[in-house]
């Protein structure tokens, strides 16, 4: 509370981006977790903005009508306010700047969020996703793979989960030796086992190979992984980095596997750019969505210039390559990048979505995120700026995974049990810190924070509301639902995700066949509401009609009457 300089400001105006002439007058309240705008209208409509979702608050120069304040959120919502007194605006800005940049975990909203669950229910909620059960579901053959306790108490690798699945044939010494030869000890372990072909997807970080170093333990480890797939004579090592980046890493004593040292591996580079490139690309994309009255050319040029869809394609290409190797060629794959927690997580999870229809269900996607991202040490708190920290650590890695899934939904409208809204909801929750699931950077950190005792789990909450997130076209016996998805990755298949990046616009109008079907329900409900307002209002006033446009466009522009002389 000590950060709130002024808890309440009256006569604040809130603007709509597209109809700047229209605005709502109301009162702005600052709490320790939320900023709340309450309209003066009879409906007393409330807009709640979570402080932990704010990415940036900006004050524009004061003009005669007041001081404008722009709040940009991590889920790409933008709020435009006009505060009558400059002093109030400065105070609000200072408060929000501090409140939206928590410095300690304890300040995060999840530690004060209390949905009134008793202890027992809370524990049950945390047990909702069971990764042990997931590895059983995959149908791992017990004679070939097993769980090892080598990372008990995280003593082998502090960013890995304590329970790891490795080939049964490797000895503890090989495990330790392999871990020593991998960046940050992230040794090759099982991520997904494909029952139909008995090929597997394993993941790791880059080897500490430099220009000439080798480790017989690591070589044995890969050999064992290859051998746990009885039908195949070689395995792929997919380095998801551009080859140049991988080579540059050799100078730092890292790099990639030397094909001469490892028997029967084929190295494949995919070329997904690093987190810094992705961060800049997304910023450009957001700017495109922010353009005021762009022409079609401005928009398409901006989209191209951002490079965003090119990067999405690279991630999807990686997934397609791995899925094809595993399902069609029956070849196991080891995936890594540098540290094995960003691009590796993306590639493995996209491949899993393509390979296994379970991950295309609501529960399945939760399990997948819990497995490939949360448990394997994707650095959520760094990447999504949960705490005030190094801006260079921030990058939209998860955004890209969710978008890959969305792009797939566009191509396969009947293959996914969930809808677009589910993905957007996940995205918001990854950033918002309302639940404990995505706090911290690895399992060990989460355990030390005692998150399971101090915060709540998101998954059961989403599960209870699954009706809202269900795609009505999904049928588990539909041909699109079955088997492996083989998406086209032709350039023209990639679309701008309007539901995500066009959110500055008023309504989420549906984009394409596979879009969330609820958007349509929303739209028609909106139409309905407008129809009823319309009927209450006499025809001469156009209040009802005005809202019926999909998004308030001003068709007339400014040059109303240019008389030609």
């Amino acid at each position, binding site marked *: 509370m000590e950060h709130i300089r002024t808890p309440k400001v009256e006569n604040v105006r809130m603007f709509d981006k597209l109809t700047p002439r229209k605005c709502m007058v109301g009162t702005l309240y600052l709490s320790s977790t939320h900023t709340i705008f309450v309209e003066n209208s009879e409906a007393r409509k409330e807009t709640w903005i979570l402080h932990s979702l704010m990415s940036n608050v900006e004050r524009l120069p004061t003009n005669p009508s007041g001081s404008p304040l722009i709040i940009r959120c991590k889920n790409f919502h933008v709020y435009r306010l006009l505060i009558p007194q400059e002093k109030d605006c400065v105070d609000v800005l200072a408060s929000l700047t501090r409140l939206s940049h928590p410095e300690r975990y304890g300040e995060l909203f999840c530690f004060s969020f209390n949905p009134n669950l008793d202890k027992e229910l809370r524990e049950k909620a945390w047990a909702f996703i069971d990764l042990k059960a997931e590895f059983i579901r995959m149908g791992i053959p017990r004679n070939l793979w097993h769980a090892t306790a080598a990372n008990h108490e995280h003593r082998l690798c502090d960013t890995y989960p304590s329970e790891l699945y490795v080939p049964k044939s490797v000895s503890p010494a090989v495990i330790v030796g392999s871990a020593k030869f991998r960046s940050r000890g992230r040794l090759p372990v099982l991520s997904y086992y494909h029952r139909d072909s008995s090929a597997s997807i394993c993941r790791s970080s880059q080897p500490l190979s430099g220009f000439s170093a080798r480790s017989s333990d690591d070589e044995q480890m890969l050999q064992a992984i290859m051998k746990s797939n009885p039908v195949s004579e070689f395995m792929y090592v997919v380095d998801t980095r551009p080859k140049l980046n991988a080579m540059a890493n050799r100078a730092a004593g890292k790099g990639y596997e030397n094909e001469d040292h490892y028997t029967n591996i084929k190295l494949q580079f995919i070329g997904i750019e690093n987190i810094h490139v992705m961060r800049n690309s997304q910023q450009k994309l957001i700017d495109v969505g922010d353009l005021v009255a762009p022409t079609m*050319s401005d928009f398409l040029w901006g989209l191209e210039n951002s490079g965003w869809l090119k990067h999405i394609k690279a991630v999807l290409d990686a997934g397609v390559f791995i899925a094809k190797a595993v399902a069609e060629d029956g070849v196991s794959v080891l995936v890594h990048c540098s540290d094995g927690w960003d691009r590796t997580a993306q590639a493995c999870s996209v491949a899993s979505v393509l390979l296994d229809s379970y991950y295309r269900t609501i529960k399945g996607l939760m399990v997948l995120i819990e497995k490939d991202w949360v448990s394997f040490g994707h650095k959520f708190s760094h990447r999504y700026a949960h705490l005030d920290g190094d801006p260079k650590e921030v990058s939209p890695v998860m955004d890209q995974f969710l978008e890959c899934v969305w792009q797939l939904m566009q191509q396969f409208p009947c293959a996914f049990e969930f809808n677009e809204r589910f993905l957007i909801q996940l995205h918001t929750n990854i950033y918002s810190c309302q639940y404990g699931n995505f706090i911290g950077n690895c399992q060990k950190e989460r355990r030390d924070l005692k998150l399971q005792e101090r915060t709540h789990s998101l998954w059961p909450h989403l599960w209870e509301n699954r009706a809202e997130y269900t795609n009505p076209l999904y049928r588990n016996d539909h041909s699109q639902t079955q088997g492996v998805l083989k998406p086209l990755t032709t350039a023209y298949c990639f679309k701008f995700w309007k539901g995500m990046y066009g959110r500055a616009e008023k309504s989420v109008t549906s984009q394409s*066949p596979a879009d969330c079907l609820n*958007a349509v329900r929303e739209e028609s409900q909106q139409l309905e509401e407008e129809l009823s307002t319309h009927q209450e209002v006499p025809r001469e006033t156009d209040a009802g009609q*005005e809202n*019926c446009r999909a*998004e308030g*466009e001003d068709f007339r522009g400014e040059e109303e*009457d240019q008389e030609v002389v």
Partner: protein
Amino acid sequence: MELSEHIKTANVEDVTLRRPFHPALRGTLCVTSHHLLFSDRKDEDSWQLLILLRNIDATEKRAVGSSGTITIKCKDLLVLQLEIPGMEECLNIASSIEALSALESVTEMYPFFYRPSHLTLHGPWGLSSTEKYYKQTERLWDRWRVSTVNSDYSVCPSYPHAVIVPREVDDEKLVQSARFRQGGRFPVLSYCHHRNGMVIMRSSQPLTGANRKRCKEDELLLQAVIDGSLLGYIIDLRSTQQAQQARMTGGGFESKSCYSHWKRIHRHHERGKVLQESLIKLVEACSDPSHSVDRWLSKLENSKWLSHVHSALSTAGLVVECVERDGHSVLVHGSEGTDSTLLVSSLAQLILDPASRTLTGFLGLLERDWIQAGHPFQQRCAHSAYSHARLKQECPSFLLLLDCVWQVWRQFPLALEFSEALLLRLAQEVYASNYGTFLCNNEQERCAAGVKENTHCLFQSLLSPDIEEQYLNPLYEPTDLAIWPSVHPQSLQLWTGLFLRWTEYAQNMEEAREEVWSIVKEHRERAGPDRTNNTPSTHCDTLTPFENLMDELTIL
């Protein structure tokens, strides 16, 4: 010359056919006066492909040893390859295709020979007309009349025999006004808004010329349109500069001093060659799947097709704003008044008028505002995106309309009674058809050629009960409101259903559409027989569970 004289080789055996996403087939190829027929000649389960020669936009020949390959590029964007053993046969077939796909004489075209057993030539032709529209629209009866001043097409060769004009303007004045407008296209009524009686008029540009000629009758005609109200809008579909320049060639615009109650707004629209080239570029970009994302986006941008969609919808939105919100009448024109004028005025109607959003209503709108209004279909659709022929009068105005309608449909998945399948069918029929609907350039030509007497009507056939269903939108829920589409660039999309029609991409969408139908049908059955016929319901009815589901489904 008889058509059959173009055919030197009528039959070739052992031809291999390659088409996208199907294994190659061997069979027999036949050329007839109007068709290319491929048959795999299996005794059972034989498969045949019949292509109207008119549908073929371009052919490319290539010799491989003693055999030849013909690549056939169709106006509906399908690309096929035929491998023909024997060079001579190959050349003969190719030359037959070239000659027979480009017939000039209307009465030689296939619609004059198409005689399916289930249709008869006698009986009414078409769905709508000026007179019918007038009769249906009670609001018009008081102040407007149907004039037959053009009954012999002498006042305006491209107008229909009957037009709707203000009652107080007599035929003599119309003749004078026609003389003052390019091609004689004087201002006529296109639409009367059911809510406030405001109208959308269309015409061609006035022939003011360099020395600013005036025409009293034309001024009186427009004055009579707004009748007492203080203001009307003229939406000129050219930039101010273009309108200015048009004076040098005898055209011009309505000046403020002569038309004091009319406010003129200029909106630049591309026309003719520029649009055709835009289509060619877009189709070219879509047919190369090897492009990188950057290259694709750059080619998409460079084609400018979506920019044209954007301008058409924006200007239509502007017209709607004038009519619905400001409550003023509008006159739309560009130069000739046969392309963008029709595009904008018909889109505005779709946005404004619930009646034009039904299947019958939409086809009626096309009939009145495009076919009878004298859009020169034969000239505009002589070639599509693949042709190497030098461009003459080709222009995809109608395709652009269909694309815009698709954008509206995608943004308002419940508001239109028809489906994407209808738009795709129309996109195909407009270039090559069994029916006479899109033949010729105007009513006068159609009369002279005897189109009504000797061909069948496409629109009537689309409405026949056995095929109508595939063109219906399963999620249709009529709304009385205007449906304003968003024209923000991020809300407009490439029409994949048309431009990527022959790719795998389209196949999954088709499955999804089927899924929507099956869900809807299942629920209709459950809901009982009284709901099977898509009874019009309003949004105010208490929502039944069935309707709730309808709301859930999207725009497939």
